């Protein structure tokens, strides 16, 4: 095996991202969930920096800085603050048993590795193998959104999904155009702020952040 060390390091970071996704899937405490999200952002930032250094693409330094500011510092801070003000620390028992979710997650990983094969075959980047991991991160975040009840953990799942998308774009084409990247970052930021307000509204209406209250259309209680 003669792959250069920087690429080995990138592969290791990709594997770490996948591991973090599983850690988030198994986590019941929301505090730890948010911390894991911050760690995922940090790993993503490290991978972007490494890739920027490897390929010499200027704009990737900018997106690394953006990742650091937004996903490692600001959003986790915002989520921690929301958590304290709303006093939600634990998710209720998820819809599926934790071990069951994990096994489902494994199947999803197998599926997404298969799904990413044609994409990887078309891509010409050195990191194309990691596309499979990016797809897996996206789908695992999706799974965690499906199995959780609390609005808070669903938002964390949403942000983790965005991380996966970003990583996928990075490993398939060395990052999206700057305009798109800035747009997505702004979108996530605004969505987060709006959802923050929304949380308070939900709680005021239903006295809880449990989203199954939203499932019934009328208040026929």
């Amino acid at each position, binding site marked *: 095996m003669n792959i250069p060390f920087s690429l080995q390091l990138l592969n*290791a970071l990709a594997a770490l991202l996948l591991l973090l996704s599983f850690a988030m899937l198994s986590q019941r405490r929301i505090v730890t969930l948010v911390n894991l999200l911050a760690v995922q952002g940090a790993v993503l930032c490290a991978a972007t920096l490494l890739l920027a250094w490897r390929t010499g693409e200027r704009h990737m330094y900018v997106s690394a800085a953006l990742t650091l500011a937004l996903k490692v510092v600001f959003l986790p801070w915002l989520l921690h603050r929301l958590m304290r003000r709303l006093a939600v620390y634990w998710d209720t028992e998820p819809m599926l048993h934790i071990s069951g979710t994990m096994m489902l997650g494994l199947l999803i990983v197998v599926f997404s590795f298969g799904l990413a094969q044609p994409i990887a075959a078309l891509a010409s980047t050195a990191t194309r193998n990691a596309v499979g991991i990016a797809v897996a991160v996206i789908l695992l975040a999706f799974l965690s959104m499906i199995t959780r009840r609390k609005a808070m953990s669903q938002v964390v799942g949403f942000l983790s999904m965005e991380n996966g998308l970003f990583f996928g774009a990075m490993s398939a084409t060395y990052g999206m155009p700057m305009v798109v990247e800035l747009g997505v970052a702004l979108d996530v930021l605004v969505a987060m702020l709006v959802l923050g307000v929304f949380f308070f509204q939900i709680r005021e209406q239903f006295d809880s952040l449990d989203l199954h209250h939203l499932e019934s259309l009328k208040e026929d209680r």
Partner: protein
Amino acid sequence: MSLSHWITQLLEVALALLAAPLFLGWVNQCRAWLQNRSAPSLLQPYRGIRKLFYKEAVIAYGASPLFRMAPYVVFGAMALAAAIIPTLGTRLPVTQAADAIALVGVLAMARVFVALAAMDVGTAFGTLGARREMMVGFLAEPALLMVVFVASLISASSALPAITEHLATQATTLMPSLAFIGVAFTLVLLAENARIPVDNPATHLELTMIHEALLLEYSARHLALMEWAAALKLFNYVCIGFALFVPWGVAVGTAPRALAVALPLLALKLAVAGAGLALIETVSAKLRVLRAPEFLATAFLFAVLGLLVHLLLGA
């Protein structure tokens, strides 16, 4: 295979038999230090085994021959496993004769006999222990096999010595898959050897015990053999870990010089591993018995993730 190979092989097994209680003593000593207790002597496990050999054996009324036979079978299986694992050298006759899957089979046979013997007398505790042991076993074995499979994929052979040689001689690369299966193996090791997150090795007569419940009906030389086999099992697992994850320094031939290098290195690795094991046991709390399947499912998950990552990234 020449005579010198066989002599080295015998030496390896004898070393495993003698060093296993010492290793257990070392783990206990480290644990006592970490918990601010005054530590028992390193030789305490030997004293316990010797004392038991001098006592008169008492056998429960109605016990079948299987009950008497089990300690010898279990001890024999563990000694055979010690011969299969390349602890000192890789080119030894028994080490070459069996692959890693056979090794897992030998360990499984020991487990079956322990469980059968525990159920044989018909006491409640024995049956309870046997059930729990089988529950842990049926979850830990697939994880262990997965670990072995990933290592076999990496080195293109299912024979443990070949895996060890391949991993020891290849250029240093970052292997995420190896890290994943390393974590999986550590979890399996803790569960299989009744260490802390799953079982507490320091207590008798606790309702959540597994290992001690299996041995309740044994006394004297039978108990001594069972305890010795348990120490040997821990030693064996740690040595499988060395063969897979820290293979450097294992002798490829039987040249005295290579063995002279392998022996102190093995002692060093064992000292570090024992201290690490004591540290893990000190910082973690015992899980409820019903949480043990979740613990082992995590081990399986890590092993399968290692497999998938290896297939995708080729590393």
